[in-house]
């Protein structure tokens, strides 16, 4: 299990990255944290002509609060996010989800940009991005564009990013003060990709309830459960509304079967975890 031969580039600027991607015309792979790409290389399931390593671009690793948003440089390590005071204060849902990403030694290298660009529908970050309605910034030879998750995730392991585009930033709206949150995940082993995961955030503004819900592991892309959000936004965070939202979640999702779980089981879990996530989010919410 040794990687095939490839040319290796570790540029220090984004411009060089894009120039290289243009030059290889689809035959190059961007190397971020490498926690998904290097296994694929070792199995020889990926055989790019070249690797363009982003790890030497210092300017791609940052966490900044800006205008009600938190901006993450694509090369921000998951480990940095896990221990970031800004994230703990502004995006506690992301912090909790981070604990479910692999294991600490994986998070030491894994990055937020890499995880989202890899587009594994069982992964935690795409679900959080979807739940919170964040966006990503991509840069290519024609400049920058921002994409909401619905425009980014195409299907399993596939995004709409062009071969000469690179994801540079992830923007998440800061959660309001007093918001409650929960990331519920069911996997067969600790640290595995989710069989099903549910990201939830809720907050109250006077009598008005806002809810954010998205799933991982139940279909080719992370799914925002807008209809479930509407139930609790309409009826409040009552037990009955949570139950109704959970039932709706089971109806909404379109999971596939794999060797770890049947489609029906996933559908069922989507409901169970939606209820658990909303219940726990209600407990952590203030105001």
């Amino acid at each position, binding site marked *: *299990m*040794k*990687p*095939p*031969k490839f040319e290796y580039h570790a540029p220090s600027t984004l411009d060089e990255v894009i120039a290289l991607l243009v030059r290889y015309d689809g035959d190059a792979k961007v190397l971020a944290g490498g926690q998904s790409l290097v296994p694929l290389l070792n*199995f*020889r399931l990926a055989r790019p002509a070249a690797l363009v390593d982003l790890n030497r671009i210092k300017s791609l690793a940052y966490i900044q609060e800006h205008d009600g948003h938190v901006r993450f440089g694509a090369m921000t390590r998951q480990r940095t996010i896990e221990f970031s005071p800004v994230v703990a204060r502004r995006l506690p849902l992301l912090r909790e989800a981070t604990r479910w990403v692999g294991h600490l030694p994986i998070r030491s290298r894994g990055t937020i940009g890499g995880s989202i660009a890899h587009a594994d529908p069982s992964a935690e970050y795409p679900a959080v991005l979807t739940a919170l309605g964040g966006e990503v910034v991509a840069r290519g030879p024609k400049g920058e564009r921002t994409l909401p998750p619905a425009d980014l995730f195409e299907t399993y392991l596939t995004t709409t990013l062009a071969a000469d585009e690179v994801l540079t930033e992830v923007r998440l709206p800061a959660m309001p003060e007093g918001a409650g949150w929960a990331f519920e995940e*069911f996997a*067969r*082993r*600790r*640290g*595995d*990709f989710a*069989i099903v995961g549910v990201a939830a955030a809720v907050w109250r503004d006077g009598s008005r309830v806002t809810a954010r819900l998205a799933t991982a592991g139940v279909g080719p892309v992370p799914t925002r459960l807008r209809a479930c959000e509407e139930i609790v936004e309409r009826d409040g965070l009552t037990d009955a509304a949570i139950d109704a939202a959970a039932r709706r979640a089971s109806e909404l999702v379109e999971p596939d079967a794999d*060797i*770890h*779980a*049947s489609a*029906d*089981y996933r559908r*069922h*879990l989507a409901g*169970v975890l939606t209820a658990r996530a909303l219940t726990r989010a209600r407990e952590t919410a203030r105001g």
Partner: protein
Amino acid sequence: MSDRWIGKSVKRVEDFRLLTGRGTYIDDHPPVANVHQAAIVRSRYAHGRILRYDVSKALAAEGVVAVITGEDVAKETKPFGVGVTAPVHYYCAATDKVRFVGEPVAVVVARDRYLAEDAAELVDVEIEPLPVVIDVEKALEPGAPVLHEKVGTNLAGHRRLVYGDPDRAFREAEVVLRERFRFPKYGSTPIETYGIIARWELDGVCTVWSNFMGPFIMHPLTARVLGLPENKLRFIVPPDIGGSFGIKSSIYPYIALIALAAKHAGVPVKWIEDRREHLLASSSGTDRVAYREVAAMKDGTVLGMRYKWLDNVGGYIRSPEPGCSFRPTGNFVGPYNFQHLEVDASVVMTNKSLTGPNRGYACGHLYFETEGMMDRLAAKLGLDPVEIRRRNLLQPDQFPYRTPTGGYYDSGDYPAALDKAVRIAKYDDLRREQAKARAEGRWVGIGVALAVDPSVSNMGYVATALDPQFRAKPEYLPKSGAVDSATVKVDPLGRVTAILGTTPQGQGHQTIVAQIVADELGLTPDDVTVVDEMDTFTRVWSISSGTYSSRFGSVGTSAVALAARKLRAKLVEYAAHLMERPASDVEFRDGAVRPRTGKGPSYSVKDLAGRAHWNTESLPDGMEPGLQATAVFGFTVAKAVDAEDRVNSSNTYGFIAEVMAVEVDRQTAAIKILKYVTVHDAGTIINPMIAEGQIYGGALHGLGGALYEELKYDDDGQLLTGTFMDYLVPTASEAPAEIEIDHVVSPSPLTPLGSKGLGESSSMTVPAVIANAVSDALVPLGLRITELPMTPSGLWELIRSAQRRP
């Protein structure tokens, strides 16, 4: 001597090197000059005919020195002997057809592994795909694809073994129950994979370094395959092996393959198996379909049983299979008193990877079924699962006990061990808590499982696979034995070195041997250096040598104790001579030879060693110079299988009693272990810390098979769990946090120290105890577990269909 080292949790000698990264595993082996690396080309098809090889591109690739294919294998090697009479031609690589995904078809040798893998991709093997069969029952249906045309069927072997009068037992029974079980294919996946270095010497000797663990019967088998006299094939096993659990006994075909590649390449060749190769094509236990019947009286007395087994050995039958069916022959009846048994064992070949010993070899299967039947019988008769077992257990006054199948249970107190487990588990309280939980609608269950834990297989058991008529032929040579050896020597300064030929994989042999020798010679373990690097050219070994079948705790330790005692006797005789007394007047006490009574000089080991080595004139007439002794220990109860198929398949027999409580999550169907108690009787325990380490590890292997691990195939014979992302090895978070271990000690009368093996331990009971506990939890649904692994998704589907039943 006041303090004894045996029985103490002495810290391990091995730990210093292993904790500091100074171990010597096969891949760390000091470089052999000019060593090249091999990559193996493997079949992508589960079944197909090989039409053509083209190695020209691979040969031309950078750094490549040789490529061999199945053609070379067919020309230059012989097939391995197999344990059945069916003409299965098993070579070290595919020659005519491929029969499972991952089967070796060619080997590339290059300057390094990266280049070897590059070139392996360039080897072109044209294969015409053939229809595939992976299911044991489908493989025996008429019209099923046949893997081996010369055999004509996929049945590699079949035996119907009858003990007592089972038909009568079933006629006279007041209750008869039947069940069908499925046991999954899984392997212990040691974290260190297979590794080999092969080098041909100019004198025609082939030296092979590998993490092979025995049995060393595979050495002469491999020599024959390579066309070498046995004394021209040298096996060396490095001091450290990164786990095995039976799996590395099956490395030997690769030894032949890499040796052949090294011969062609003209350079030493190293091959380190990668994880993909390991999951695709190393070894695992069999998956089995079992039909069980039990005949009993209304009071719960079991009269007899019928076992019908279909064991899936994959594309070929590789020795020591069909041990999957016959390894537990002597303990087929487990801890129970019944006398009538019929075993109908079919060994079936399908397009899956090959099988072999895996921790608990065949016993996990056996007890999953038997203990499942005991619970069904208890439920049928309205008896508690503990009570039904008590009514059938062998009693202490029955030992030593000859089982109807020929086993010779050397010692035990089964009721005491069961009572202890029940007491520690607070079984009655558990039942009360369960009733309360059930009233609240929770799915809480309690399981019980018992097992006779066999150690030190008698090589003779394998012949149970052969018909008695075949075994009666004059040209047939009977087989039996379980032998190991050790040497103990004293240097001129009185320090001791013990030399073993064992192949430990983490069991702490050096530590344990130091404890034994220290006790026998009145020293401390620090005074004893233990060398255990197996080398077939320099060690005294037998074809049953090796560290498998829970051997060391029983046979290895015995050889060490006897060698030390032999040496001690010589020291006593020598000292008596120096004291000018008859040997009967002196004794070895507190590290020195002293007069039995009265005053007089005493001679310490150090003192005697100096004199004996430096002044041979001081030796009594006729005494051989030198202070060393070699002992070879063999069990006399290891006899060949008899004409009625009875065989004492192991040599010492321990006992396990377990109680487990679980809760099944009503929403996710996830299983949580609430309590787990395991009581073992392995005779004298030499090092409790090490013994309990074996139990913790064994239990998690059992749990892996019961809940997480499975080598799963699709209908095309493609492995679906070919990575560690899909083949789920339990982590620290899945391992039960609270395991309560206790012991009952019934010393074996057959070993000098009274010890038995316990390396396989709870790997053989956990599948049974957790299946019984989950079944008990699901009583409100009328469900019983018949298949493993119990995945959350699978269990949820099962529960849902039960809930939908009217």
